[in-house]
């Protein structure tokens, strides 16, 4: 058992941390968040130059061969900086599908472009009626010679507005909730019949509702084979869940630290409010929530690194923990900041919104508690 980082891992974490400290302060972040752009293209190219966009990919695919621990280290820092650039959507989700199941041509065509920062992509994992169930796919793909025709509606597609390539799970057989019968298609965003309703989210990220109306794609756009998309989809979502949980820890630690500091400087009744036991104990509760969450994150990252049989269940344990602990830490930080905590001006509000969004992403606490129980039984 060894919890120490390798030299490369330490360097990676330091590299992201330095960028956040020097180039991504709250003011710069808010400029991007409040602009009409979804993110800063300049920053994205910096990410690529620094090698971050290559981290999770295999060396033979032009990546750096990083695993869950590397992802965890980067995402914690992205959380600290409230980074809005689409690392999750582009690298972990769409990149994650291509990395796991793309064939040689698909990797050559798209993965290289994702790694060098020139291609934006997205994974359309949700549908309006599906809530958090990945297998609930009503979108259909009908074979038509050496083409497929896609029809349906995709919800909350992260980075969907900026993406040039969108991976669409569609049903090629089976009933609407069947795990089998789902096929993944790589669809260019400019395809005829594909329309997008783009919007920003409460946490200053960007998403889109996507309608597919007789979109024709060649059979070469199938990733992972006909009817066999689900395991790949689930694996990518699992990793993305780990990623947002790590991001959440970065946010929770930052909120907790800022709250403790604030309570030492904010004076009421002639004394710092941090001298009040009612507040001290609540800040101890948030510290404990951070520590317990960090422990589960570490456990989950290590189980997933080793490909343990419990790895999927660990993801749900972690997401439940982050859902409940994140809510506690976020709400307490806002409360202890008093009126300032509910202003747009203060960073606390924006950390809170991102943390709340992460609480929903890929299934909330209740969803994952039930999934944890379900996976215990099997």
């Amino acid at each position: 058992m060894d919890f120490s980082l390798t030299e490369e891992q330490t360097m990676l974490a330091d590299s992201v941390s330095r960028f956040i400290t020097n180039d991504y302060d709250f003011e710069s972040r808010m400029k991007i968040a409040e602009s009409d752009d979804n993110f800063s293209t300049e920053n994205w190219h910096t990410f690529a130059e620094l090698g971050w966009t290559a981290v999770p990919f295999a060396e033979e695919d032009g990546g750096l061969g990083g695993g869950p621990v590397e992802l965890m280290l980067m995402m914690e820092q992205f959380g600290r900086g409230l980074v809005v650039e689409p690392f999750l959507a582009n690298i972990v989700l769409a990149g994650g599908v291509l990395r796991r199941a793309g064939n040689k041509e698909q990797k050559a065509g798209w993965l290289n472009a994702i790694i060098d920062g020139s291609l934006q992509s997205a994974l359309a994992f949700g549908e309006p009626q599906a809530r958090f169930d990945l297998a609930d796919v009503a979108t259909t793909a009908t074979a038509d010679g050496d083409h497929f025709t896609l029809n349906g509606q995709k919800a909350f597609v992260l980075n969907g507005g900026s993406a040039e390539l969108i991976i669409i799970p569609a049903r090629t057989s089976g009933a609407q909730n069947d795990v089998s019968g789902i096929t993944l298609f790589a669809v260019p965003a400019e395809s005829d019949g594909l329309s997008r309703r783009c919007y920003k989210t409460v946490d200053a990220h960007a998403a889109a509702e996507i309608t597919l109306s007789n979109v024709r794609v060649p059979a070469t756009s199938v990733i992972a084979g006909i009817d066999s998309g689900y395991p790949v989809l689930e694996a990518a979502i699992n990793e993305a869940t780990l990623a947002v949980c790590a991001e959440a820890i970065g946010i929770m630690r930052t909120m907790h630290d800022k709250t403790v500091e604030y309570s030492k400087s904010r004076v009421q009744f002639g004394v710092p409010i941090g001298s009040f036991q009612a507040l001290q104990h609540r800040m101890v509760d948030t510290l404990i929530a951070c520590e317990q969450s960090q422990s589960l994150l570490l456990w989950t990252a290590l189980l997933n690194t080793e490909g343990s049989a419990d790895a999927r269940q660990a993801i749900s344990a972690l997401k439940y923990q982050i859902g409940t602990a994140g809510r506690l830490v976020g709400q307490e930080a806002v409360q202890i900041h008093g009126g300032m905590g509910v202003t747009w001006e203060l960073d606390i509000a924006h950390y809170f919104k991102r943390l709340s969004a992460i609480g929903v992403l890929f299934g909330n606490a209740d969803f994952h508690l039930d999934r944890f129980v379900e996976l215990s039984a099997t």
Partner: protein
Amino acid sequence: MNISFTNEELEFQQEVRRFFDEKFPEDIKRKQDSGAVLSKEDYIRWQKILYEKGWAAINWPTEYGGTGWTPIQMYIFSNEIARANAPDMVPFGVKMVAPVIYTFGSEEQKARFLPDILESNVWWCQGYSEPGSGSDLASLKMRADRDGDSYVLNGTKTWTTLAHMADWIFCLVRTSSDVARRQEGISFVLVDMQTPGVTVRPIITIEGEREVNEVHFEDVRIPVENLVGEEGKGWTYGKVLLQHERTNIAGVSRSQNALKRLKEKAALSIHGGTPLADDQNFARKVASVEINLKALEFTQLRTLAAVAVGKAPGPESSILKICGSEIQQELDALFMEAAGYYALPYVPDQYMADFPDSERVGYGGETNTSLRYFNNRKASIYGGSNEIQKNIIAKHVLGL
């Protein structure tokens, strides 16, 4: 980073497991598994078996007869002892007074007291709390007045666990009231329970058992060589002891064991034709504790990893105490829920090992569900209440 044990650690785990399989007495195991109360003789017999193996004092340095194990080895050992459902060493000698004696005591004290602790020849109890001094321990009033080569003790200690079985007691006493900080007037002394003037009175706790006592001292005369370290430094020594106590207090492997038994019980308990284990509300509560416990296991491992590279367990150990006790108590409450009506019979004789199985009232083999639930409300109160732990964290970790 990795999560696996090294080959050496795996071999060590096997060695410990084999030892428990072979040497943990069958009759004591039966008592443990059925939740019966162990006698003093049971404890001594088992602790002497551990002593013969050289494993009585896993936390001591080798020069005093300890194992000198790494934190990971201690972790493995405590997992295995819980897995075997063997009792832990009674802590007052080996885990509490001994570290104070070998860290701060004289050579004579080490030679006189440590071997008997190691061999379980002498039983200790802890004299800290007083009727007027609970969470505010530094307000303690029991006096030790110097008179020639003796101290004369007067006062009362309370909540003294197993005092009725103990041969010796270690006490925090006031040797001076004329000090700037009241903590500076406190000393650490060792008292033979047979000394004239020592009286032990039982306190019956909520579940109806005698576990704790009040110990009265009336003109009890002890030789000055029973003072540990320097006069007036007892508070500092006592704090060291408490931090030792708190890293052990998390009880992770015990709770893991309890969780396993809870799931077994819930699978047996039929409600409306289906096992309670399949009830979604109940399953969610169990899952929530399980997740919290897994987190605590890793919080403890992170603390151990820090200790392994030379960092002392500091105020962070308070986190282990808070979370560990909350989890234990949540599990106790879920056992109550799982037992339904059978949480309610009050048949104290059932806690005894010689109670015939055919006479047992209950379901699923466990007869002490409510005993544990009521008794273990103490977990968030002793060792510094959880609120005191939060004060410690607020001050020493958060700097508030």
